[in-house]
């Protein structure tokens, strides 16, 4: 077992670093920006990725990609994340829509949908979750009714990132109300011009997610991906890509959360630069560091398995769970160490610290709740019977 870059990987990493250093030269630290400013830079950054031919990094060459593997994507994302690069505005397109359409699409579907992602003029969003179906995704109710040449879709979706910028949606809808829960679903590549989008304000004030209301949205037959009634299977592919992509960023965010709580403690004199001071803090940071490093190393092992031909296994649930724990604890502690317990939001840095703490509460909910992650571990790692 070897945790070093291969020569090829190292050469690629150097190329990435050189490009990033140049491309990020005029990009400000995203942490200090308003949400509008962050969104502006996300768009600029997406454009630069497309222009630099990085958008289809892990797509096969025949689809316009670079034909590298997810390991290379990980290297790119890692180098981008440690530099605090903006989050690209069409992450869903590059990481989820593209790979899913490549895996399940017809030649025509691929030709129709992939170039826009690489060009950077068609943004995608994901329309899976619904108000009534959170963890129980397959209980979705958005209904597609067969009409001449396609489907009329009615219903609502929720937790959609970036819906207000997207023109296309990975849309799950029920095309057969009589079929068993998992078998009546189809996966539609839906145009968004007739979606009504309402932004959801999060508890930290950000409007990262949206609700979408579909009122007789028409999706042509040729935009059913993977065949009518096969939507659940196709969705699992997308969810696997989503899980796989976790390894690309999570550990950097965990490390940064630990960095920040140490910075607060140093600033407040809780500890000194020699590692002396409050032993309760040192114990806590010791544990946070263990967990944060475990996310990094576990991510590397997951990527290694993927390169060796495996698929991300249930162990990704352990990484997700560890990551959420580290970020939640570190961000809570950073607030508590702040002057006045961090509740005076106009104090220096206080608003950003509180925003991160509140944002982190979502980490045990989004992308599979903590309870779902533990269920997956129990069922698929420990082979316990289903508990939900």
């Amino acid at each position, binding site marked *: 077992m070897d945790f070093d870059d291969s020569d090829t990987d190292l050469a690629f990493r150097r190329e990435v670093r050189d490009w990033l250093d140049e491309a990020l030269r005029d990009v400000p630290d995203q942490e200090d920006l308003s949400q509008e400013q962050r969104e502006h830079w996300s768009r600029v950054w997406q454009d630069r990725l497309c222009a630099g031919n990085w958008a289809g990094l892990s797509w096969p060459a025949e689809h316009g990609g670079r034909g590298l593997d997810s390991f290379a994507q990980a290297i790119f994302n890692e180098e981008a994340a440690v530099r605090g690069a903006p989050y690209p505005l069409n992450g869903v397109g590059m990481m989820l829509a593209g790979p899913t359409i490549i895996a399940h699409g017809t030649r025509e579907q691929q030709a129709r949908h992939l170039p826009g992602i690489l060009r950077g003029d068609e943004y995608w969003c994901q329309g899976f979750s619904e108000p009534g179906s959170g963890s129980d995704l397959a209980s979705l109710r958005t209904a597609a009714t067969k009409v001449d040449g396609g489907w009329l879709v009615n219903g609502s979706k929720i937790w959609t990132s970036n819906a207000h910028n997207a023109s296309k949606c990975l849309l799950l809808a029920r095309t057969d109300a009589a079929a068993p829960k998992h078998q009546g679903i189809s996966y539609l590549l839906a145009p968004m011009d007739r979606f009504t989008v309402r932004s959801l304000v999060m508890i930290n004030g950000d409007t990262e997610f949206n609700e979408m209301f579909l009122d007789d949205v028409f999706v042509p037959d040729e935009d059913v991906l993977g065949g009518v009634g096969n939507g659940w299977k196709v969705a699992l592919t997308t969810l696997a890509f989503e899980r796989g992509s976790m390894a690309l960023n999570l550990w950097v965010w965990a490390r940064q959360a630990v960095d920040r709580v140490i910075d607060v403690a140093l600033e407040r004199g809780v500890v000194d630069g020699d590692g002396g001071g409050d032993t309760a803090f040192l114990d806590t940071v010791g544990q946070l560091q263990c967990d944060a490093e475990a996310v990094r190393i576990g991510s590397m092992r997951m990527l290694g398995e993927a390169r060796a031909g495996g698929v991300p296994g249930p162990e990704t649930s352990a990484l997700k769970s560890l990551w959420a724990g580290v970020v939640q604890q570190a961000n809570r502690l950073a607030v*508590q160490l702040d002057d*006045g*317990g961090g*509740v005076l939001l106009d104090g220096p840095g206080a608003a950003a610290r509180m925003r991160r703490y509140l944002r982190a509460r979502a980490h045990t909910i989004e992308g599979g*709740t903590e309870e779902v992650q533990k269920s997956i571990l129990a069922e698929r790692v420990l082979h316990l019977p289903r508990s939900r």
Partner: protein
Amino acid sequence: MRATFTQEQLEIAKTVRSLVEGEGVTARTALDDGWRAPACDGPLLRDFGLLGVPERAGGIGSDLIDLLVAVEVLGEHLVPSRFPAHAAAVQLLSAAPLPEDVLSGERVLTPAMDALVRFAAQADGLAVHRPDGVGIAVAEAVVARQSLDPSVPLSDVTLAAPEALTPAGTGPWRAVLVVAAELCGVAQGAIDLAAEQARTREQFGRVIGSYQGVAFQLAEAATARKAAWDLTLYAGWAVDNDRPDAQLQVHAAKAAAGRAAVFAAERCIQVHGGMGITMEADPHLFLRRALVLDAVLGSGAAHRRRVGALRVQARSASS
């Protein structure tokens, strides 16, 4: 009857509950439009001002626990009233006779004991704690700060010299317990809201409260809240009765109450799933209040450490 609420205390809780249950001005209102006085603010200040005030301070023999019971109910409902702050200020000053207009609620006070001064712009005076005593001071300048919980406005205050100082006695401890009681209420309110969600939200064909993964975290929150409330009540009695362990009990109450409230509010968010992280659902209102009150009059973490130190001292002295 020993260790049970008096009939009067049960009545107080009931009366306060009925007073606040129809209240239109809420923590939500303040989040949207800034703080304004709820309708119950006046009646609370006017009619409940003698709760917990010792006779030496001008009271009529009400126990501190009477006040804690009232404030707990306000916490449950996140009522944005000035009453808890005013009551804490009164308690801070309660080792000596208090002015009539303070006891009648005409002159609203708020404690200025640390950097987090609540309702400074909405009060008529500040109760201050100096090394040589406590007293009432007026603010020369009040600069509003941005509070995590806009239903509890916070300010920087420049104080004039207090009118006159009187001995602090157990006043500072009594003030801390008023905050602990409100935190116990916040914890209870968050648990009630979470349990309601767990009883109604369905996933995988069952209400989520039937999954132990959900149910057990609420059971833990309920346990922490019960511990905090029992500690708070006992500390109230211990202070009122000059028990030798009163100081330890006060620190324990504030530590436990803050922990219970923050934990319950975080669990409330978790149990609400995606909706729990939106502004439009209510769980975050409990978290905001919990974090602010956990920080007020000494952080829960600082009180907890003090409990540890005092407990070690006591053990060391006894052996």
